[in-house]
Protein backbone atom coordinates (compact mmCIF):
# COMPACT_ATOMS: atom_id res chain seq x y z
CA UNK A 1 0.00 0.00 0.00
CA UNK A 2 1.59 3.25 -1.12
CA UNK A 3 0.20 5.29 1.80
CA UNK A 4 2.15 3.36 4.36
CA UNK A 5 5.34 3.14 2.37
CA UNK A 6 8.12 4.89 4.32
CA UNK A 7 9.82 7.54 2.15
CA UNK A 8 13.43 8.48 2.88
CA UNK A 9 13.54 11.70 4.89
CA UNK A 10 14.88 14.85 3.27
CA UNK A 11 17.73 16.28 5.31
CA UNK A 12 19.06 19.81 5.49
CA UNK A 13 22.14 18.66 3.56
CA UNK A 14 19.86 17.58 0.71
CA UNK A 15 18.24 20.98 0.67
CA UNK A 16 21.55 22.82 0.64
CA UNK A 17 22.84 20.63 -2.17
CA UNK A 18 19.90 21.77 -4.27
CA UNK A 19 21.84 24.94 -4.75
CA UNK A 20 24.34 23.04 -6.87
CA UNK A 21 21.70 23.05 -9.57
CA UNK A 22 21.35 26.81 -9.55
CA UNK A 23 23.47 27.29 -12.63
CA UNK A 24 23.54 30.06 -15.20
CA UNK A 25 22.59 29.32 -18.78
CA UNK A 26 25.23 28.78 -21.49
CA UNK A 27 24.61 32.24 -22.93
CA UNK A 28 25.75 33.74 -19.66
CA UNK A 29 29.27 32.38 -20.13
CA UNK A 30 29.63 33.94 -23.56
CA UNK A 31 28.94 37.35 -22.07
CA UNK A 32 31.13 36.53 -19.08
CA UNK A 33 34.12 35.65 -21.28
CA UNK A 34 33.69 38.80 -23.31
CA UNK A 35 33.61 41.03 -20.22
CA UNK A 36 36.53 39.21 -18.65
CA UNK A 37 38.63 39.68 -21.78
CA UNK A 38 37.90 43.40 -21.76
CA UNK A 39 38.77 43.72 -18.06
CA UNK A 40 41.95 41.75 -18.59
CA UNK A 41 43.09 44.07 -21.36
CA UNK A 42 42.22 47.14 -19.27
CA UNK A 43 44.21 45.74 -16.36
CA UNK A 44 47.19 45.12 -18.63
CA UNK A 45 47.12 48.65 -20.03
CA UNK A 46 46.43 50.36 -16.73
CA UNK A 47 49.56 51.72 -15.12
CA UNK A 48 49.72 50.80 -11.49
CA UNK A 49 50.43 53.43 -8.89
CA UNK A 50 53.93 53.45 -7.39
CA UNK A 51 52.68 52.60 -3.90
CA UNK A 52 51.06 49.45 -5.23
CA UNK A 53 54.40 48.27 -6.54
CA UNK A 54 56.30 49.30 -3.44
CA UNK A 55 55.87 46.03 -1.52
CA UNK A 56 57.03 44.08 -4.54
CA UNK A 57 60.12 46.28 -4.81
CA UNK A 58 60.90 45.96 -1.13
CA UNK A 59 60.51 42.22 -1.21
CA UNK A 60 63.12 41.75 -3.88
CA UNK A 61 66.34 40.54 -2.41
CA UNK A 62 68.51 42.91 -4.40
CA UNK A 63 66.96 45.85 -2.59
CA UNK A 64 67.42 44.48 0.90
CA UNK A 65 71.06 45.60 1.33
CA UNK A 66 70.15 49.03 0.01
CA UNK A 67 67.31 49.33 2.46
CA UNK A 68 69.46 48.14 5.34
CA UNK A 69 72.17 50.65 4.47
CA UNK A 70 69.63 53.45 4.27
CA UNK A 71 68.24 52.55 7.68
CA UNK A 72 71.73 52.43 9.18
CA UNK A 73 72.62 55.79 7.65
CA UNK A 74 69.42 57.33 8.91
CA UNK A 75 70.05 55.96 12.41
CA UNK A 76 73.62 57.31 12.39
CA UNK A 77 72.53 60.76 11.25
CA UNK A 78 69.67 60.95 13.73
CA UNK A 79 71.91 59.87 16.63
CA UNK A 80 74.67 62.28 15.63
CA UNK A 81 72.54 65.36 15.14
CA UNK A 82 69.53 64.77 17.33
CA UNK A 83 70.97 62.60 20.07
CA UNK A 84 71.77 63.83 23.61
CA UNK A 85 74.57 66.41 23.65
CA UNK A 86 77.16 66.42 26.48
CA UNK A 87 76.36 68.82 29.31
CA UNK A 88 78.27 72.08 28.93
CA UNK A 89 78.94 72.29 32.67
CA UNK A 90 82.37 70.75 32.49
CA UNK A 91 83.49 73.25 29.91
CA UNK A 92 81.76 76.32 31.17
CA UNK A 93 83.06 76.20 34.73
CA UNK A 94 86.71 77.12 34.02
CA UNK A 95 85.60 79.49 31.31
CA UNK A 96 83.43 81.42 33.71
CA UNK A 97 86.14 81.60 36.32
CA UNK A 98 88.72 82.77 33.84
CA UNK A 99 86.38 85.38 32.49
CA UNK A 100 85.78 86.67 35.98
CA UNK A 101 89.48 86.86 36.57
CA UNK A 102 90.16 88.57 33.31
CA UNK A 103 87.19 90.90 33.35
CA UNK A 104 86.20 91.95 36.84
CA UNK A 105 83.03 93.58 35.57
CA UNK A 106 81.34 90.19 35.34
CA UNK A 107 79.81 89.26 38.64
CA UNK A 108 80.79 85.91 39.99
CA UNK A 109 77.93 86.03 42.46
CA UNK A 110 75.44 85.79 39.70
CA UNK A 111 76.01 82.08 39.63
CA UNK A 112 74.60 81.68 43.10
CA UNK A 113 71.23 83.09 42.08
CA UNK A 114 68.03 81.22 42.99
CA UNK A 115 68.00 79.76 39.51
CA UNK A 116 71.05 77.78 40.41
CA UNK A 117 68.95 75.65 42.71
CA UNK A 118 66.43 74.93 40.01
CA UNK A 119 68.52 74.20 36.96
CA UNK A 120 70.53 70.98 37.08
CA UNK A 121 72.97 72.42 34.58
CA UNK A 122 73.78 75.37 36.83
CA UNK A 123 73.98 73.04 39.79
CA UNK A 124 76.54 71.05 37.92
CA UNK A 125 78.50 74.23 37.33
CA UNK A 126 78.42 75.01 41.03
CA UNK A 127 79.65 71.53 41.87
CA UNK A 128 82.47 71.83 39.42
CA UNK A 129 83.65 75.02 41.03
CA UNK A 130 85.92 75.03 44.07
CA UNK A 131 83.79 74.80 47.19
CA UNK A 132 85.07 77.85 49.07
CA UNK A 133 87.11 80.64 47.58
CA UNK A 134 88.43 82.82 50.33
CA UNK A 135 90.26 86.04 50.00
CA UNK A 136 93.56 84.32 50.65
CA UNK A 137 93.01 81.68 47.96
CA UNK A 138 94.89 82.68 44.87
CA UNK A 139 92.79 82.63 41.73
CA UNK A 140 93.99 80.38 38.95
CA UNK A 141 95.74 81.90 36.05
CA UNK A 142 93.26 83.27 33.51
CA UNK A 143 92.91 81.21 30.40
CA UNK A 144 93.17 82.99 27.11
CA UNK A 145 89.78 82.49 25.59
CA UNK A 146 89.67 85.55 23.40
CA UNK A 147 92.47 87.08 21.40
CA UNK A 148 94.04 90.04 23.14
CA UNK A 149 93.09 92.33 20.31
CA UNK A 150 89.45 91.36 20.70
CA UNK A 151 89.53 91.97 24.42
CA UNK A 152 91.09 95.37 23.88
CA UNK A 153 88.33 96.25 21.47
CA UNK A 154 85.76 94.97 23.94
CA UNK A 155 87.26 97.08 26.69
CA UNK A 156 86.81 100.15 24.60
CA UNK A 157 83.10 99.68 24.13
CA UNK A 158 80.86 102.24 25.87
CA UNK A 159 79.26 99.64 28.14
CA UNK A 160 82.65 98.39 29.30
CA UNK A 161 83.76 101.93 30.03
CA UNK A 162 80.61 102.59 32.04
CA UNK A 163 81.05 99.39 34.04
CA UNK A 164 84.68 100.26 34.76
CA UNK A 165 83.72 103.76 35.97
CA UNK A 166 80.99 102.37 38.22
CA UNK A 167 83.35 99.82 39.64
CA UNK A 168 85.96 102.46 40.44
CA UNK A 169 83.41 104.58 42.28
CA UNK A 170 82.14 101.57 44.25
CA UNK A 171 85.69 100.67 45.23
CA UNK A 172 85.84 103.85 47.18
CA UNK A 173 82.45 103.61 48.87
CA UNK A 174 81.76 99.87 49.12
CA UNK A 175 84.99 97.89 49.11
CA UNK A 176 83.31 94.72 50.45
CA UNK A 177 80.79 94.69 47.68
CA UNK A 178 83.46 95.23 45.07
CA UNK A 179 85.44 92.34 46.46
CA UNK A 180 82.41 90.12 46.26
CA UNK A 181 81.73 91.20 42.69
CA UNK A 182 85.31 90.47 41.75
CA UNK A 183 84.90 86.85 42.67
CA UNK A 184 85.72 86.53 46.32
CA UNK A 185 83.07 85.47 48.77
CA UNK A 186 81.59 87.86 51.25
CA UNK A 187 83.35 87.91 54.55
CA UNK A 188 81.32 86.73 57.59
CA UNK A 189 80.94 90.31 58.78
CA UNK A 190 79.57 91.40 55.47
CA UNK A 191 77.17 88.48 55.44
CA UNK A 192 75.78 89.36 58.87
CA UNK A 193 75.51 92.96 57.82
CA UNK A 194 73.54 92.04 54.76
CA UNK A 195 71.22 89.72 56.71
CA UNK A 196 70.56 92.45 59.27
CA UNK A 197 69.75 94.81 56.46
CA UNK A 198 67.30 92.37 54.94
CA UNK A 199 65.65 91.64 58.28
CA UNK A 200 65.20 95.29 59.13
CA UNK A 201 63.77 95.94 55.68
CA UNK A 202 61.44 92.97 56.05
CA UNK A 203 60.19 94.14 59.40
CA UNK A 204 59.58 97.64 58.17
CA UNK A 205 57.58 96.65 55.11
CA UNK A 206 53.88 97.23 55.85
CA UNK A 207 52.19 94.24 54.28
CA UNK A 208 49.16 92.12 55.03
CA UNK A 209 51.45 89.62 56.66
CA UNK A 210 53.10 92.22 58.89
CA UNK A 211 52.66 90.06 61.98
CA UNK A 212 54.42 87.22 60.26
CA UNK A 213 57.20 89.63 59.26
CA UNK A 214 57.58 90.75 62.87
CA UNK A 215 57.81 87.18 64.09
CA UNK A 216 60.43 86.45 61.47
CA UNK A 217 62.36 89.55 62.50
CA UNK A 218 62.21 88.50 66.15
CA UNK A 219 63.35 85.07 65.25
CA UNK A 220 66.23 86.47 63.23
CA UNK A 221 67.39 88.52 66.23
CA UNK A 222 67.80 85.45 68.35
CA UNK A 223 71.35 84.24 68.81
CA UNK A 224 72.33 81.04 67.03
CA UNK A 225 72.58 78.04 69.32
CA UNK A 226 73.03 74.30 68.93
CA UNK A 227 69.58 73.66 70.47
CA UNK A 228 67.35 76.29 69.05
CA UNK A 229 64.06 76.92 70.83
CA UNK A 230 60.98 78.00 68.94
CA UNK A 231 59.04 81.15 69.88
CA UNK A 232 56.38 80.89 72.55
CA UNK A 233 53.43 81.01 70.19
CA UNK A 234 54.86 78.23 68.04
CA UNK A 235 55.43 76.02 71.07
CA UNK A 236 51.90 76.61 72.30
CA UNK A 237 50.34 75.71 68.97
CA UNK A 238 52.51 72.65 68.65
CA UNK A 239 51.48 71.46 72.10
CA UNK A 240 47.80 71.94 71.28
CA UNK A 241 48.06 70.00 68.04
CA UNK A 242 49.98 67.16 69.65
CA UNK A 243 47.44 66.96 72.45
CA UNK A 244 44.53 66.84 69.96
CA UNK A 245 42.75 69.44 72.03
CA UNK A 246 42.34 71.63 68.97
CA UNK A 247 40.71 68.82 66.97
CA UNK A 248 38.29 67.79 69.73
CA UNK A 249 37.46 71.43 70.30
CA UNK A 250 36.48 71.81 66.65
CA UNK A 251 34.46 68.61 66.60
CA UNK A 252 32.53 69.65 69.69
CA UNK A 253 31.30 72.69 67.88
CA UNK A 254 29.22 70.58 65.45
CA UNK A 255 26.19 69.06 67.07
CA UNK A 256 23.91 66.43 65.56
CA UNK A 257 20.56 65.99 67.24
CA UNK A 258 17.71 64.21 65.46
CA UNK A 259 17.14 66.12 62.24
CA UNK A 260 19.03 69.20 63.45
CA UNK A 261 22.58 70.20 62.90
CA UNK A 262 23.92 72.91 65.17
CA UNK A 263 27.17 74.79 64.77
CA UNK A 264 28.84 76.42 67.77
CA UNK A 265 31.00 79.48 67.17
CA UNK A 266 33.60 80.56 69.71
CA UNK A 267 35.00 84.03 69.60
CA UNK A 268 38.53 84.44 70.82
CA UNK A 269 39.47 87.85 72.04
Amino acid at each position, binding site marked *: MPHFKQRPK*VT*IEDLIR*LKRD*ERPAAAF*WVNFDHELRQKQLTALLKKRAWWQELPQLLMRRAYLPVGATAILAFTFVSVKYYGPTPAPALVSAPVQQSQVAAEPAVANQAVSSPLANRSPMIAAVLEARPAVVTDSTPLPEPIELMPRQTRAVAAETPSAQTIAANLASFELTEPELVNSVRGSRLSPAARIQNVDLVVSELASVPTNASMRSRILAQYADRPLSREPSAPEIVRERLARRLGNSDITDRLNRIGLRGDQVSLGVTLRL
Partner: protein
Amino acid sequence: MNLSKVFTKAIITSPERQQEADADLSIVKRVQAGEVAAFDQLILKYRERVFGIIYNLTSNREDASDLTQDAFIKAFQSINRFQGHCSFFTWLYRIAVNGALSHLRKNRLRTFFSLEKLHEDGTNAQIIDQLTDKKGADRGTYLKELQEKLNEALQKLSIPHRTVITLFEIDGLGHAEIAEIMGCTEGTVRSRLHYAKQFLQGEMGKYLNS
Protein backbone atom coordinates in the same frame (compact mmCIF):
# COMPACT_ATOMS: atom_id res chain seq x y z
CA MET B 1 61.49 20.41 2.55
CA ASN B 2 59.31 23.43 2.95
CA LEU B 3 56.71 23.07 5.69
CA SER B 4 53.94 24.61 3.64
CA LYS B 5 54.61 22.10 0.88
CA VAL B 6 54.26 19.28 3.38
CA PHE B 7 51.00 20.81 4.55
CA THR B 8 49.70 21.04 1.00
CA LYS B 9 50.63 17.44 0.31
CA ALA B 10 48.77 16.42 3.44
CA ILE B 11 45.64 18.27 2.33
CA ILE B 12 45.58 16.92 -1.19
CA THR B 13 45.08 13.32 -0.33
CA SER B 14 43.36 11.89 -3.37
CA PRO B 15 45.58 11.08 -6.38
CA GLU B 16 43.12 12.78 -8.73
CA ARG B 17 43.43 16.01 -6.82
CA GLN B 18 47.20 15.69 -6.82
CA GLN B 19 47.23 15.07 -10.55
CA GLU B 20 44.98 18.06 -11.09
CA ALA B 21 47.23 20.24 -8.94
CA ASP B 22 50.30 19.16 -10.89
CA ALA B 23 48.58 19.92 -14.19
CA ASP B 24 47.60 23.36 -12.92
CA LEU B 25 51.14 24.03 -11.76
CA SER B 26 52.56 23.26 -15.19
CA ILE B 27 50.07 25.72 -16.75
CA VAL B 28 50.95 28.35 -14.17
CA LYS B 29 54.66 27.93 -14.96
CA ARG B 30 53.94 28.50 -18.62
CA VAL B 31 52.05 31.69 -17.78
CA GLN B 32 54.90 32.80 -15.55
CA ALA B 33 57.30 32.15 -18.41
CA GLY B 34 55.36 34.60 -20.55
CA GLU B 35 52.76 32.44 -22.29
CA VAL B 36 49.84 34.60 -21.27
CA ALA B 37 47.27 32.73 -23.38
CA ALA B 38 47.77 29.64 -21.24
CA PHE B 39 45.87 31.38 -18.47
CA ASP B 40 42.67 30.96 -20.51
CA GLN B 41 42.82 27.24 -19.81
CA LEU B 42 42.69 27.95 -16.10
CA ILE B 43 39.77 30.34 -16.60
CA LEU B 44 37.79 27.77 -18.56
CA LYS B 45 38.54 25.11 -16.02
CA TYR B 46 37.58 26.98 -12.89
CA ARG B 47 35.14 29.74 -13.89
CA GLU B 48 32.01 27.78 -13.03
CA ARG B 49 33.28 26.63 -9.65
CA VAL B 50 34.51 30.10 -8.72
CA PHE B 51 31.25 31.62 -9.88
CA GLY B 52 29.34 29.00 -7.88
CA ILE B 53 31.09 29.74 -4.61
CA ILE B 54 30.70 33.51 -5.00
CA TYR B 55 27.10 33.20 -6.13
CA ASN B 56 26.23 31.08 -3.12
CA LEU B 57 27.89 33.58 -0.84
CA THR B 58 26.21 36.64 -2.32
CA SER B 59 22.95 35.22 -3.73
CA ASN B 60 23.24 37.75 -6.50
CA ARG B 61 24.06 36.80 -10.08
CA GLU B 62 25.44 40.15 -11.23
CA ASP B 63 27.66 40.59 -8.19
CA ALA B 64 28.89 37.05 -8.54
CA SER B 65 29.75 37.63 -12.18
CA ASP B 66 31.73 40.79 -11.44
CA LEU B 67 33.51 39.28 -8.45
CA THR B 68 34.45 36.17 -10.41
CA GLN B 69 35.97 38.28 -13.15
CA ASP B 70 37.84 40.34 -10.57
CA ALA B 71 39.17 37.19 -8.94
CA PHE B 72 40.58 35.93 -12.23
CA ILE B 73 42.13 39.29 -13.00
CA LYS B 74 43.75 39.46 -9.57
CA ALA B 75 45.07 35.95 -10.01
CA PHE B 76 46.44 36.87 -13.44
CA GLN B 77 48.14 39.98 -12.10
CA SER B 78 49.67 38.14 -9.16
CA ILE B 79 50.56 34.96 -11.00
CA ASN B 80 54.29 35.68 -10.59
CA ARG B 81 53.86 35.59 -6.82
CA PHE B 82 52.39 32.10 -6.92
CA GLN B 83 55.22 29.78 -5.89
CA GLY B 84 53.37 26.49 -5.66
CA HIS B 85 53.26 26.22 -1.89
CA CYS B 86 49.60 25.28 -2.24
CA SER B 87 47.55 24.13 -5.21
CA PHE B 88 46.46 26.73 -7.75
CA PHE B 89 42.87 25.81 -7.03
CA THR B 90 43.26 26.64 -3.33
CA TRP B 91 45.09 29.86 -4.15
CA LEU B 92 42.40 30.94 -6.63
CA TYR B 93 39.65 30.04 -4.17
CA ARG B 94 41.31 32.11 -1.49
CA ILE B 95 41.41 35.13 -3.80
CA ALA B 96 37.77 34.62 -4.78
CA VAL B 97 36.51 34.07 -1.23
CA ASN B 98 38.46 37.04 0.12
CA GLY B 99 37.05 39.27 -2.63
CA ALA B 100 33.52 38.05 -1.92
CA LEU B 101 33.89 38.54 1.82
CA SER B 102 35.23 42.03 1.30
CA HIS B 103 32.29 42.81 -0.98
CA LEU B 104 29.82 41.44 1.56
CA ARG B 105 31.32 43.51 4.37
CA LYS B 106 31.12 46.65 2.27
CA ASN B 107 27.52 46.02 1.26
CA ARG B 108 26.30 44.48 4.48
CA LEU B 109 23.05 46.40 4.45
CA ARG B 110 22.27 45.84 0.80
CA THR B 111 20.74 42.40 0.38
CA PHE B 112 19.30 41.99 -3.08
CA PHE B 113 18.64 38.54 -4.47
CA SER B 114 19.10 37.80 -8.10
CA LEU B 115 18.80 34.06 -8.37
CA GLU B 116 19.65 31.61 -11.09
CA LYS B 117 17.10 29.11 -12.31
CA LEU B 118 17.07 25.85 -10.41
CA HIS B 119 17.68 23.10 -12.99
CA GLU B 120 15.47 20.16 -12.32
CA ASP B 121 17.43 17.79 -14.48
CA GLY B 122 20.43 17.86 -12.20
CA THR B 123 21.71 15.33 -9.73
CA ASN B 124 19.16 16.40 -7.18
CA ALA B 125 16.12 15.63 -9.31
CA GLN B 126 15.10 12.83 -6.99
CA ILE B 127 15.14 15.09 -3.95
CA ILE B 128 13.09 17.67 -5.80
CA ASP B 129 10.54 15.03 -6.69
CA GLN B 130 10.43 13.89 -3.13
CA LEU B 131 9.97 17.40 -1.82
CA THR B 132 7.30 18.54 -4.20
CA ASP B 133 5.44 15.47 -5.36
CA LYS B 134 3.29 17.83 -7.35
CA LYS B 135 2.71 18.49 -11.01
CA GLY B 136 2.45 21.45 -13.33
CA ALA B 137 2.50 25.07 -12.15
CA ASP B 138 2.25 24.22 -8.49
CA ARG B 139 5.54 22.37 -8.57
CA GLY B 140 7.35 25.30 -10.17
CA THR B 141 5.92 27.74 -7.61
CA TYR B 142 6.87 25.46 -4.79
CA LEU B 143 10.42 25.13 -6.06
CA LYS B 144 10.77 28.88 -6.45
CA GLU B 145 9.51 29.44 -2.93
CA LEU B 146 11.88 26.81 -1.61
CA GLN B 147 14.78 28.40 -3.43
CA GLU B 148 13.98 31.84 -2.02
CA LYS B 149 13.56 30.54 1.53
CA LEU B 150 16.82 28.67 1.32
CA ASN B 151 18.65 31.77 0.13
CA GLU B 152 17.05 33.88 2.83
CA ALA B 153 18.10 31.39 5.47
CA LEU B 154 21.65 31.32 4.14
CA GLN B 155 21.82 35.10 4.12
CA LYS B 156 20.78 35.16 7.77
CA LEU B 157 23.96 33.27 8.65
CA SER B 158 27.09 35.22 9.45
CA ILE B 159 29.63 35.51 6.66
CA PRO B 160 32.09 32.94 8.08
CA HIS B 161 29.34 30.40 8.74
CA ARG B 162 27.87 30.92 5.29
CA THR B 163 31.28 30.50 3.71
CA VAL B 164 31.97 27.27 5.55
CA ILE B 165 28.66 25.65 4.70
CA THR B 166 28.89 26.75 1.08
CA LEU B 167 32.38 25.38 0.64
CA PHE B 168 31.57 22.12 2.41
CA GLU B 169 28.08 21.22 1.26
CA ILE B 170 27.88 22.86 -2.16
CA ASP B 171 31.48 22.81 -3.40
CA GLY B 172 32.37 19.58 -1.66
CA LEU B 173 35.66 20.72 -0.15
CA GLY B 174 37.19 18.99 2.86
CA HIS B 175 37.65 20.50 6.30
CA ALA B 176 41.39 20.95 5.83
CA GLU B 177 40.99 22.72 2.51
CA ILE B 178 38.35 25.04 3.94
CA ALA B 179 40.59 25.76 6.92
CA GLU B 180 43.43 26.68 4.60
CA ILE B 181 41.24 28.88 2.41
CA MET B 182 39.71 30.68 5.38
CA GLY B 183 42.87 30.84 7.43
CA CYS B 184 41.46 29.09 10.51
CA THR B 185 41.75 25.72 12.20
CA GLU B 186 39.88 22.60 11.24
CA GLY B 187 38.17 22.66 14.61
CA THR B 188 36.79 26.09 13.87
CA VAL B 189 35.53 24.84 10.51
CA ARG B 190 33.75 21.89 12.11
CA SER B 191 32.23 24.07 14.79
CA ARG B 192 30.95 26.62 12.30
CA LEU B 193 29.56 23.88 10.11
CA HIS B 194 27.68 22.33 13.00
CA TYR B 195 26.20 25.66 14.06
CA ALA B 196 25.23 26.61 10.50
CA LYS B 197 23.44 23.29 9.94
CA GLN B 198 21.53 23.62 13.19
CA PHE B 199 20.47 27.12 12.27
CA LEU B 200 19.35 26.13 8.77
CA GLN B 201 17.47 23.15 10.14
CA GLY B 202 15.49 25.50 12.34
CA GLU B 203 14.80 27.89 9.50
CA MET B 204 13.85 25.24 6.93
CA GLY B 205 11.95 22.92 9.26
CA LYS B 206 8.71 23.40 7.35
CA TYR B 207 10.20 22.00 4.16
CA LEU B 208 11.98 19.17 5.88
CA ASN B 209 8.84 17.84 7.56
CA SER B 210 6.57 18.15 4.55
